[in-house]
């Protein structure tokens, strides 16, 4: 997030949510949005293919066709430019590349966008006006925007919209991705990415590599590594032989599970370090028992870039071992000598090579966490990014044309399938499926289908149905609900018994980010006879 | 002095209260005309000078109340409390049925004083026929042009006694549970929809046209000096003439019972009179020589309240009556604050125990303790006043309790 979570509850005067079911996936952020709308009269615009909880209190709700995000955002920009609502001063002083965007969005009239997205032109206009005219407009998104073959385009379009309206760098504004996992921000910050060292220092840049070579006292590879999804493909082709999986469950979380399982089975060596014998661990050659967050010390960095403490509360069971100790042990066995006394000791090294974390110490975050960038120990942290200038100087507009999703419905697979999370479960369910109350409350997967579609297919609420795509088929209960329209079905990916990722496609990913298109694939829903 | 003095009810049954024209023929809407010709401050001063005090029970100076309303860039409301829920009280209904236009004119005068264009009448849910009549009266007044740009809407209650409390009434108009708010802020500052609001009783509003036409001095010269004007009383219970009367406020209570009321029914002996509604004190024979005005009644530990006069003859069982009253308050407590919600429940339990002859002196002690805490600590007037009948009967009719104690 460019801005902090608290601002959504107090400073934002208009909030535009696209592709985030905030009250289910980031409930506490959802509370703040609701409070701001209810008590301070903040305006709310919701764009989502499902009429989610927050849509009920929105000033404008746009139920758009999955995968048409760029068209919708271009349409809003078209209105803003044509109605003279853009922030000219901001665009002139803080950005570059506007003319190209202006040319592209010119043809995205609300009427034309209405045809693509299914959103009435009048609503597009209203939404554009609310966001553009707001004193402080915050744009929030989550995986609904990113998990597309055009995910990078979608995000860039969102940034265009924010820059066009000057909704950046001030309290209550910003482009705010709501990140789905407790430490996804930290994992990226720490360089658990194939292209960068800690703090996004590109591995391909010689200066960075030299810096780390010096810090670590070893020669480093100049080549970008492969992404998670590419690694699975490489394993499939036999190019990847060994895989070490730490606390992940790609069998359930990655697209096209059959493909993933085949790939993992082809490996010479699969090491899995986890707390449970997950679906992935079951395929491993060696399983290393780590510990839960309740059994370890360390830090997590949340979606607003706040680095906070994690504290050991209880001992770990049996021979399970601290994850950091396992990694240090393994590193030494692989011939690189290193030793640390504690997680804090590791953090001290992190500070030295991670400029944005340099000012953060365990002592400073003992009570309240700090937002990075925090370059020195006197620095108070940075809740709001881009206040004076962007990290590259001027903000860069990207002119983006709308492209359809990779797999569109056809006669054989006439529905659009989107997948996502439920309030009551988390990711692959490794933890929540073993949390008794959560699993009792929501013990199995469902597929959400509109009343019309259900009636057409002769399906009643709660009935077991078959959901099929070109990759595979699962059987699960139907949940008949009017929150989605007749062309869309939705299911959750937490349940191994009816795993959504059996259905999703791994063939075409976002070309830049490598993100799979979980929000759109063609599917068929059938009554089981 | 043993005659009625009719001001508000002067033309009762002589004009059609639904018709503005009838009212105008007998001098109606002249007061509003005058009020509108005056400077706001002068208007409020005039009302202050008349000494008009609230007829709903609290007896607050009306002009003073209005003067607290801040005039800023926001809406203001005039609300008429017509949630006449006190058992034995029906004077507001009589005023509406006989002279509804005076109420409307009074509200509009208040509107002129606080620069408000919108009035609400919150009418008791048990009076649907009056609501119908009021709506016709409003239409007629609007059609005649007499009200000008002042609008009045009638809202109905749903049978909760507590909604007679002004803040609970406001909550109810807003569509919430009828529960009182804490004060401050008073409605004058933050009332309906959190805007400045004047809440007055039907009778208070109905006095205003006559104050404006006849002058503040005229009104101040009627009745008791500190609570001037007339008061409409409703007589119930063991009295020959159980009906309504309008009298000057220096009228004697004994005269209410014996002259207007025609004395105790059937020639029986007088035992007690309860004035002001269910939460009023029980007044014994020895205190009958008291003026009915607010301050004189307070001096004997009673209250003029709504002006209900409930007469009890020698055969009445005071403890039984108070037990019934305690049931009423148990039923009508809104349940918001602890002292009232729990206290009215336990009062009723103890009263029933006493009435059934199963209580001891300890129960009486507990009852008195409970009563004291309810008066001291309850959130609104309902809880604070609910124990008054108990206290006053323990004081004046203690022997009736003693007889039932084991």
């Amino acid at each position, binding site marked *: 997030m460019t801005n902090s979570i608290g601002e959504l509850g107090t400073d934002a005067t208009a909030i535009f949510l696209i592709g985030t079911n905030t009250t289910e996936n980031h409930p506490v952020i959802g509370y703040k949005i609701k409070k701001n709308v209810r008590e301070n009269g903040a305006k709310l615009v919701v764009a989502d293919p499902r009429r989610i909880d927050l849509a009920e209190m929105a000033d404008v709700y746009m139920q758009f066709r999955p995968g048409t995000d760029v068209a919708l955002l271009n349409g809003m920009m078209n209105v803003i430019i044509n109605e003279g609502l853009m922030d000219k001063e901001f665009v002139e002083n803080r950005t570059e590349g506007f003319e190209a965007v202006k040319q592209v969005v010119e043809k995205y009239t609300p009427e034309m966008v209405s045809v693509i997205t299914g959103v009435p032109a009048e609503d597009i206009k209203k939404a554009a006006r609310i966001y553009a005219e707001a004193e402080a407009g915050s744009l929030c998104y989550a995986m609904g925007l990113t998990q597309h073959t055009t995910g990078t385009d979608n995000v860039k379009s969102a940034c265009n919209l924010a820059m066009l309206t000057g909704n950046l760098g001030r309290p209550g504004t910003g482009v705010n991705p709501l990140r789905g996992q407790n430490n996804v921000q930290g*994992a990226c910050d720490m360089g658990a990415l194939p292209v960068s060292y800690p703090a996004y220092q590109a591995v391909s840049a010689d200066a960075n590599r030299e810096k780390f070579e010096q810090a670590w006292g070893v020669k480093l590879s100049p080549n970008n590594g492969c992404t998670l999804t590419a690694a699975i493909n490489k394993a499939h082709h036999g190019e990847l032989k060994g895989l070490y999986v730490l606390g992940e469950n790609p069998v359930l979380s990655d697209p096209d599970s059959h493909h993933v399982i085949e790939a993992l089975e082809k490996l010479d060596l699969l090491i899995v370090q986890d707390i449970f*014998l997950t679906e992935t661990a079951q395929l491993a050659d060696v399983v290393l028992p780590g510990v839960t967050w309740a059994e370890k010390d360390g830090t997590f960095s949340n979606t607003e870039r706040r680095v906070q403490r994690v504290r050991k509360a209880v001992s770990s069971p049996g021979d*399970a071992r601290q994850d*950091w100790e396992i990694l240090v042990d393994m590193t030494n066995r692989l011939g690189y000598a290193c030793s640390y006394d504690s997680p804090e000791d590791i953090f001290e090294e992190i500070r030295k090579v991670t400029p944005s974390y340099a000012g953060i110490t365990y002592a400073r975050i003992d009570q309240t966490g700090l937002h990075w960038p925090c370059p020195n120990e006197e620095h108070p942290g940075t809740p709001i990014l881009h206040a004076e200038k962007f990290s590259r100087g001027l903000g860069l507009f990207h002119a983006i044309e709308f492209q359809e999703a990779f797999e569109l419905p056809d006669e054989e697979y006439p529905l659009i399938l989107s997948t996502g999370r439920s309030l009551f479960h988390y990711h692959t369910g490794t933890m929540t499926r073993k949390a008794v*109350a959560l699993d009792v409350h929501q013990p199995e997967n469902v597929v959400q289908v509109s009343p019309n579609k259900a009636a057409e297919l002769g399906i009643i609420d709660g009935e077991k149905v078959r959901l099929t795509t070109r990759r595979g088929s699962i059987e699960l209960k139907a949940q008949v609900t009017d929150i989605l329209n007749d062309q869309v079905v939705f299911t959750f990916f937490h349940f191994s018994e009816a795993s959504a990722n059996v259905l999703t496609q791994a063939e075409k990913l976002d070309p830049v980010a490598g993100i799979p298109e979980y929000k759109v694939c063609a599917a068929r829903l059938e009554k089981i006879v | 002095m043993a005659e009625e003095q009719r001001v508000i009810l002067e033309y009762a049954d002589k004009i059609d209260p639904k018709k503005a024209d009838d009212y105008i023929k007998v001098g109606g809407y002249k007061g509003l005309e005058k009020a509108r010709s005056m400077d706001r401050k002068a208007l409020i001063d005039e009302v202050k000078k008349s000494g008009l005090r609230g007829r709903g029970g609290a007896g607050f100076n009306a002009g003073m109340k209005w003067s607290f309303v801040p005039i800023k860039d926001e809406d203001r409301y005039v609300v008429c409390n017509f949630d006449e829920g006190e058992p034995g009280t029906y004077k507001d209904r009589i005023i509406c049925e006989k002279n509804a236009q005076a109420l409307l004119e009074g509200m509009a005068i208040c509107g002129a004083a606080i620069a408000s264009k919108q009035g609400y009448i919150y009418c008791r849910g048990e009076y649907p026929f009056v609501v119908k009549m009021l709506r016709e009266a409003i239409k007629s007044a609007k059609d005649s042009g007499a009200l000008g740009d002042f609008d009045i809407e009638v809202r109905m209650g749903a049978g909760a006694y507590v909604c007679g409390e002004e803040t609970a009434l406001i909550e109810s108009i807003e569509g919430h549970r009828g529960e009182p708010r804490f004060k401050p802020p008073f409605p004058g500052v933050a009332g309906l929809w959190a805007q400045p609001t004047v809440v007055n009783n039907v009778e208070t509003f109905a006095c205003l046209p006559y104050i404006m036409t006849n002058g503040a001095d005229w009104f101040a010269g009627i009745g008791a000096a500190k609570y001037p004007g007339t008061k409409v009383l409703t007589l119930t219970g063991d009295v020959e003439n159980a009906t309504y009367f309008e009298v000057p406020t220096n009228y004697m209570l004994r005269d209410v019972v014996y002259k207007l009321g025609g004395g105790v029914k059937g020639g029986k002996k007088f035992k007690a009179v309860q004035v002001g509604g269910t939460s009023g004190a029980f007044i014994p024979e020895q205190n009958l020589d008291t003026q009915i005005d607010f301050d004189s009644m307070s001096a004997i530990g009673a209250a003029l309240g709504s002006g209900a006069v409930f007469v009890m003859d020698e055969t009445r069982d005071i403890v039984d009556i108070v037990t019934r009253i305690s049931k009423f308050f148990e039923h009508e407590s809104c349940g918001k604050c*602890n002292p009232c919600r*729990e206290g009215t429940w336990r009062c009723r339990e103890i009263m029933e125990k006493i009435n059934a002859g199963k209580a001891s002196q300890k129960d009486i002690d507990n009852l008195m303790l409970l009563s004291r805490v309810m008066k001291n600590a309850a959130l609104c007037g309902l809880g604070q006043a609910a124990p008054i009948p108990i206290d006053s009967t323990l004081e004046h009719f203690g022997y009736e309790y003693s007889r039932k104690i084991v």
Partner: protein
Amino acid sequence: MLKLTINGQEIEVPKGTMLLSACQQAGADIPTFCYDPDLKLAGSCRMCVVEVEGRRNLLASCVTPCENNMVVSTESDRTTEARKVILELLLARHKVECMTCEKVGMCKLQDYCYRYGVKDSRFAGEKGHFAMEDPNPFIERDYDKCIMCTRCVRACEEITGAQAINVKERGHHAKISTIFDGKLADSTCVFCGQCIMVCPVGALTSKVSMGKGRSMEYDRVLTTCTYCGTGCTLELNVKDDQVVGVTSNRDATYSPVNKGALCVKGRFGWDFIHSPERLTTPLIKENGQFRPASWEEAMDFAANKLKAIKEKDGPDSIAMFSSARVTNEENYLAQKMMRAAIGTNNVDHCARL
């Protein structure tokens, strides 16, 4: 600034200060049930009443704005009498079940009865009949213990925005209820448990923690939630080296993101920690079957195989999936291991999934 005398002590407060806050500044410890600094004022429990000179009635200090020259007494005979009677009235309706009550030690009713020496109620009579069965697996609703402070109602509306519960009926029949007095699961409840967080007595408790330990038996360890990226802080309740529950600290210093508010997963989704299915020993697969192994053996096995692959097929034939669920320190070590020890940049995690 306004000048007041509180319990004989003169203090100054800014205009708009409530009497409760002024009394606290003067060092007075005023009992409250319905007051909650984060919620709209109710002014209904009347426990915070104080005596102000010249006022006929006692004033509820939480809803009374300070006025200049007020002379206030917070523990006068009248206030003590009122508080004792209120406590006795609440005891008369309350299901007194302290032997087994989850809230012992954190129960305000218990604390205040102790403070004011209230052993039993002079007003004991009929009890309330509010008990109900609610089969949801998260929140135990025992309204026979409810004292009608309505903090749950206000928290549900003002913190979570769920508006699942409100007051139904009136007088002493008044109770906390969902629409049509049904189950929480049939209401707009999202099982965040904010109602448990604010409940001052044992009326609302966690079913997941039931019978596992009471507040004086457990320590609280402040940590950051393991689920979504919001980064809520919470307290793990630890008794005998076991997590027995989750509570939260509402002070923004310790809970900057959420001020104590949590969601259903954060508050009720912790018991997997002690799941019998946890891995407790390294495993090596032989002939398609796992067998337990020592750490030495498992680590040797893994390291040797990795080294062999590296030697044979080069460092880029090895990859690592690090994790968005482990700590920064562990992510740092994971990428360092791959880059420094293996010699590849093939490290990623599930950020995209």
